[in-house]
């Protein structure tokens, strides 16, 4: 199971807590998913949502607060500090957004915020792009986890750039890698795990499904399948057919 900053979590599925029809359905989806980590947004929920935070603590799994909605280094750092106080964890999913329509990470500000937070003792989970130099800079800044996007947040498009994600895996074989955002279907999540990623972070695909609980279970199964498949050392794709039954020595029946 994935290890983040020395802590092993119980499942490679990291599930968000936003957008569910009700907290009761959210809790049920978490049970069905057996997610290892719950992510929670601080900024839009404001500082006053104790009731909701109590519900999240009631899920009894590690919480990864995030800085969703932050547009600058300063905002992100302040939000991270609030999160640390509120949830009592050094973990922070760092999001610094450049553009509201694509929710594209502002990778320049991200690296700067990651450096400040890492120096301050945070264990940073940066939401980044699959750009190798950005990933390298984030590691230089003190991150021990990288979370490149599959596709823009909430778009459900799956892995837009499997080649890029594979490169990140290949370049940083020892770093804990998470595909964060863009997952729409269980097959997308399975694909991320097949690429050798340590975990998958998703929210909308479950919360906005017609039946969030059933989708949570489907994601869990797909992630387990992808994880097993990666560990099983899958065959390479090839252009020509390769008979699975040896032809030589077959009985001649005609």
């Amino acid at each position, binding site marked *: 199971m994935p290890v983040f900053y020395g802590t092993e979590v119980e499942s490679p599925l990291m599930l968000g807590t936003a957008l569910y*029809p*009700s*907290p*009761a*359905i959210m*809790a049920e989806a978490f049970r069905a998913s057996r997610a290892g980590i719950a992510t929670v947004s601080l900024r*839009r*929920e*404001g*500082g*006053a*949502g*104790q*009731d*909701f935070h109590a*519900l999240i603590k009631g899920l009894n799994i590690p919480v990864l607060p995030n800085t969703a909605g932050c547009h600058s280094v300063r905002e992100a750092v302040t939000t991270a500090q609030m999160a640390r106080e509120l949830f009592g964890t050094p973990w922070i999913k760092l999001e610094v957004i450049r553009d*509201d329509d694509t929710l594209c990470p502002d990778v320049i500000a991200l690296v700067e915020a990651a450096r400040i937070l890492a120096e301050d003792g945070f264990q940073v989970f940066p939401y980044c792009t699959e750009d190798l130099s950005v990933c390298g800079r984030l590691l230089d800044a003190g991150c021990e986890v990288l979370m490149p996007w599959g596709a823009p947040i*909430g778009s459900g498009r799956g892995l837009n750039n499997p080649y890029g994600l594979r490169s990140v895996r290949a370049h940083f074989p020892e770093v804990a890698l998470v595909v964060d955002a863009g997952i729409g279907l269980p097959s997308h999540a399975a694909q991320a795990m097949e690429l050798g990623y340590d975990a998958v972070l998703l929210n909308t695909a479950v919360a*906005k499904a*017609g039946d969030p609980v059933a989708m949570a279970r489907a994601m869990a199964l797909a992630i387990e399948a992808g994880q097993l498949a990666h560990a099983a050392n899958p065959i390479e794709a090839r252009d020509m057919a390769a008979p699975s039954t040896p032809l030589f020595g077959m009985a001649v029946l005609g």
Partner: protein
Amino acid sequence: MSEVSILGAGVMGLTIATELAARGLKPRLIDPAGKPGAHACSWRAGGMLAPWCEAESAEPVVVRLGIDAADWWQRNGAEVTHRGTLVLAPSRDRVDLDRFARMTKEHRLVSGEDISALEPELQGRFQRGLFFERESHLNPRAALQTLRDRLAERGIGIETEGTPSGLTVDARGLSAKDELSDLRGVRGEMLVLRCPEVTLTRTVRMLHPRIPLYIVPRGEGIYMIGATMLETGGKYRVTARSAVEMLSAAYTLHPGFAEAEILELGADARPAFPDNLPRLRRRGNTLYANGLYRHGYLLSPAVARMAADYITNGTRPEFMDEDHT
């Protein structure tokens, strides 16, 4: 049942009082704030009686219990506008419209031409939408005042002080959190605009990945725009971000809203249980009626009926939650 005292004269308390009065009871109605007003979150509601649209995010029971709401309000003197709901999305968010259609029933797909036939001022602005013809809306403040007036005619006034006697019906909304620990506030923000330049005759919902909003016409060029849904109880002021989002949604719907006067910016917290469904709960000599969430006007008639049936006949309500503490 001899004596009943209702605490709280918001939408829950007034509908229960109305149902009890219809069964020949004369409940006491106690609210320290007096007549319905800004202290009640139902004061800031949209007043949509839109059970089918709500199915997009609510459980099927909300649709079932909400179907009769429009009739109930009309029967009890409220002016209900039966013009349906128009659901629209900017063309780039078309998939949100598809999802909305998939999650709901009782609608038909409308083209740009249909949309301009329904709301001529939206001509050329939207190419596709959903029309929920059977839905309606009311003016919440006028509706609450009507219930209050009708109760007053039957001799049931709102007492601002005094202790409850007999069976107590606690309909205090989020204020009952002191006794109902699983109740939480879900923050909502709304604004009221005056914009005589724009004429819309029915509720319009605008889908958007971040900020799905609705605009309800109140007549005479006045529009209510709502409402955000935030999992936090406090801070009873509208944030700049929410105001900007609501105003830009209005502007996206019709640029004429840029010229509107802002009459009111309001925020409050809706009382909700963890499943976002209402509950009746009996504890000793108190019956709690709460958890209407974002469905105050849609579900209060059904919950009030259940409460009144329980009080008068002992009928066990569908949403009953006994506490044996």
